[in-house]
């Protein structure tokens, strides 16, 4: 699929969502089926096997939308479109990440719709839409503002002589071709660093500038000399020229708001001040604390990897240096509160299955309260996100030594959901946990644990008590687990007891067959000994005395693959093939085995 085709489809999906809100007057339930469809479409075009872009950019013209210079949307009645609204309000472009969901687009469009409703009111907001969207909290959407620096760039000074001044008073100089060319390729894009989850520190700016510096050295030195010599005289016009590279860098910075940049700088200042302060109760520190708490919530809501890790690292450093005092406890609590918000838990749930965010999610799980853990699990269960559940459980296993007890606070239903996933994870306390599940008062939970019961070293008496309370259906699940799981010697006495007591054939022939298989698998030759009376006993010489048990034992025996038991099987086959009154098919199989 071409990227243009994908861009056309993605932009149409965005327009659809914008209209949906108006069509259904914001009723979420009514919009839901459409949103689901659009979500699938976005996934296909942005994350499908042919999708190769991390970000897709749309430029807004008056009656059209372009992506990579091609029209992707045109409307004859622009007033009804999102693109026209954004154009009029001063939005130059929209950048969307491949990880966007229809839900996030809906939230964003809702914000825009509500803005237009609000400004129609007499007491409506004075804030303009561009400013509202400039500080938009949606992590996968970014708007670029129209500004006069764009016009500076569009001016062609070659046609006008050395320099031009546009109506806003800006000057542009393009006579330094070398500098301009370098600027185009290595333009300062530090502000877009959050796209790659980089820490928004000045390091990146610094290193980029260093790289540029060698190439630009002569030109920049020249420029600096001009600036340092500057005085207001007739040469001023020459000195006040702009290099395209610098305008480009400033334009990039101005036209989009970088909350990460603001928060990173504040975090650096706040943590530094905290660590240098001797008086934790000072007024300034109180404000720092208050701000850090707010920021914790903000950076989690955007789930910016670099910032979250930076925050946690500085918190740990501070804790190490100052000890576990009120400040760290208070910040940890605020982290827990921030994480407890449903939207943030949903983000965390998504991050658990995203390779690039897994590391961050793992560090954050530590700050989840028991209650939040349960809610996070609910999100994962609702999404049927097995990988997410698995990652989440693995993190808990690593970080919570008493998980086998704490986990029961989640409630029966959640435990039932996670049990199948748990059996795939190596966990030293798993047996303890499963045994608790089997002993639990909830029969439903007992049942959920049955398929993996064979992994547990439980006592024969306990197993018997459990077996007696199960239905025929659940008994079958239990006995089947003896065939599917690795052999655990502790189960041998129980199996022996079941065969001896005759419990094994009480329910139906399927269960009897499963028990016979279990007996051979766990008891080996001893299994033959135990089952032989059921096989060899006769009624009036020509009839089997225990026809069901005999048949089950013989079928199970014929399925044995272990070479060390083959002699025993052959012996049975030779002896039993001659019995007159038995199932003909079994008779043939026995004859074949005897041969």
């Amino acid at each position: 699929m071409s990227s243009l085709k994908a861009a056309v489809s993605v932009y149409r999906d965005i327009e659809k969502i914008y209209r949906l809100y108006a069509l259904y007057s914001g009723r979420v339930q009514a919009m839901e089926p459409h949103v689901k469809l659009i979500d699938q479409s976005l996934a296909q075009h942005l994350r499908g096997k042919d999708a190769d872009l991390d970000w897709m950019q749309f430029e807004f013209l008056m009656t059209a939308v372009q992506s990579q210079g091609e029209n992707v949307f045109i409307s004859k009645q622009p007033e009804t479109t999102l693109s026209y609204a954004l154009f009029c309000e001063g939005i130059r472009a929209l950048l969307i990440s491949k990880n966007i969901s229809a839900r996030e687009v809906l939230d964003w469009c809702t914000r825009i719709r509500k803005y237009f409703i609000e400004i129609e009111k007499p007491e409506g907001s004075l804030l303009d839409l561009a400013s509202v969207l400039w500080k938009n909290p949606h992590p996968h959407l970014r708007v670029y503002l129209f500004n006069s620096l764009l016009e500076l760039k569009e001016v062609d000074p070659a046609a006008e002589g050395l320099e031009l001044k546009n109506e806003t008073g800006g000057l542009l100089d393009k006579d330094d071709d070398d500098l301009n060319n370098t600027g185009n390729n290595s333009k300062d894009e530090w502000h877009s660093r959050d796209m790659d989850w980089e820490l928004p520190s000045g390091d990146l700016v610094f290193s980029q500038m260093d790289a540029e510096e060698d190439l630009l050295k002569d030109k920049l030195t020249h420029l600096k000399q001009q600036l340092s010599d500057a005085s207001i005289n007739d040469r001023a016009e020459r000195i006040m020229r702009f290099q395209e590279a610098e305008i480009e860098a400033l334009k990039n910075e101005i036209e989009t708001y970088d909350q990460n940049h603001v928060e990173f700088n504040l975090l650096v200042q706040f943590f530094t001040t905290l660590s240098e302060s001797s008086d934790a109760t000072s007024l300034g520190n109180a404000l720092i604390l208050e701000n850090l708490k707010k920021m914790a919530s903000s950076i989690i809501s955007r789930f910016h990897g670099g910032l979250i890790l930076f925050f946690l690292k500085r918190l740990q450093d501070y804790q190490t240096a100052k000890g576990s005092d009120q400040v760290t406890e208070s910040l940890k609590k605020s982290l827990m509160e921030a994480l407890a918000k449903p939207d943030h838990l949903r983000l965390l749930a998504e991050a658990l299955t995203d390779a690039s965010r897994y590391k961050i999610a793992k560090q954050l799980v530590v700050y989840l309260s028991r209650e939040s853990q349960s809610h996070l699990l609910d999100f994962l269960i609702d999404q049927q996100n097995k990988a997410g559940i698995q990652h989440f459980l693995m993190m808990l296993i690593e970080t919570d030594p008493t998980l086998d007890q704490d986990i029961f606070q989640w409630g029966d239903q959640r435990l039932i959901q996670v049990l199948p996933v748990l059996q795939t994870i190596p966990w030293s306390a798993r047996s303890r946990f499963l045994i608790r599940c089997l002993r639990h008062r909830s029969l439903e939970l007992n049942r959920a644990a049955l398929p993996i019961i064979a992994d547990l070293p439980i006592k024969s008496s306990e197993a018997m008590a459990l077996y007696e309370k199960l239905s025929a259906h659940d008994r079958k699940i239990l006995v089947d687990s003896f065939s599917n799981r690795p052999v655990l010697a502790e189960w041998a006495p129980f199996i022996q007891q079941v065969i001896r007591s005759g419990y094994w054939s009480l329910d139906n022939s399927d269960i009897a067959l499963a028990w016979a298989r279990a007996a051979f698998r766990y008891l080996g030759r001893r299994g033959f000994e135990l089952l032989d009376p059921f096989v060899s006993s006769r009624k009036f010489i020509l009839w089997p005395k225990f026809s069901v048990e005999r048949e089950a034992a013989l079928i199970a025996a014929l399925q044995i693959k272990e070479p060390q038991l083959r002699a025993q099987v052959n012996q049975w086959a030779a002896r039993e093939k001659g019995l007159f009154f038995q199932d003909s098919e079994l008779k043939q199989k026995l004859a074949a085995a005897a041969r």
Partner: protein
Amino acid sequence: MMNTTNQNDDKILDAPVPVSGLILATSFLRTMFQFFRQTELHDSSNAIFVQANQEVLRTLSGLMMLPGQSGIHLTFKGELFFINGVRLRPQPRLFYIYRYLLRYFRSRKIGGIKVLALPTEKSLSVFLSLISKVDKEENPAQEIYNHLVSEGIREFELIPLSGQLEKSTNEQGEGDVELIVASLYQRLQKFVEVCFDNMERAYSFSLKPVQESLNELILLAEGDIVQMLRLISVKRYERPLPFRAVNSCFMVMAWARSLRLPAGVVTELGGAALAHPIAILSGKPGTVPEVLATIQKLKDTWQLTDLQRLSVLEWTRPFGKTGVYETQGVKSYQHFFSRMIRIVALFEEMTTYEAGKRVFLPDEALAELLKNSHDCDPTLLKLFVNWVGVYPVGSLVQLQSGEVAQVFAGASDPLRFQRPIVSVLKSANGKLLERPQLLDLSEMNEKLGVYKRNIKRSITLEEANIPPDYFQLNPVGVT
């Protein structure tokens, strides 16, 4: 399967949805602009006007179908358009349309349009064509009205420009703009002064929220804000800090407006500039705990956003080589808000009178800033100088012909930003003029091929020796 369902879902794009009045009003202006623009390029018989007319009709009918709109009353005041008394906020990308229409209507002495009922395609076409062709010198509104009556078209009425001004006596007319700006200046100055003097007790003064004042300020034209800076540039204050705060706020907002940043961004920047002296008040400029303690004390009266707080914390830091500064080994990059505020704040600091301190003339201050190239962001500084001009508005200058003048506005020719429009205050023989006289320094003596007048040098208020009240007089037109 999904494709089919998606195709069905595509019908959403054709379904009728309610449209915002603001968008429709904008479209109405846009389509009118397109129509009038075509009249300058094509003959009226050109088929292009059919579609242009249909477009105007489409947007007009959309507007008239809005609930509660029985007719459309389009007026303008200053740089603002009003539809049925509701102000249309200028939208950055459509400034040129607004300006074009304002000039178009003003040149025809039209102060407003009334659409009493939805016109037919034909009557609208006649009406728009009449506006475009009308003789500008006569009484255009009356002339158009007479034509409409003779054609039996009754859906429109025109308001002559003078009539519009008369009608707006009970509203705030253009002449009141200066008063509005002055009152906003005073309100903000009082706000800052009370806050700085009283800190946590400032709350008890029941001050008007600062954001409200900034929201009002952003509605004014960039030129009106700059004129206020001209008027106050010749003042002397005993306690300059609050004035520096407000001046910086006005200046940075006007500057940001010139960069066409959206209103909300500009007011946030203005708020940060207004708060910038908090970093100075705290004793040791730039020390975070002290600055934050001050912010904390003012929190009930003056709420700052994260970005404003960062700007207050950062603006005191020199730009250095790259704008990157280091704190405990961690590098941070100064935000552009902080860098803009630094330029404006330093300019104000240098040019605002303070007893016992050297006061720079505006052009000297700019030279000083340019000389210390590592002090401010060079790109923003150049943008600032380009915007403010080599002789910023308010600068007092002596002309080579001997007159004393004050810079009134930027150069009429953008290529000659050393040749602003000045307001001549004193004649060459040192006598105060009866009224200040505007003079465009870019005017040429056609015979000699040289400029009529040149700036000789900038001068101080003391050298100019002009009574303070004289600056308040409105100058008479450009000669």
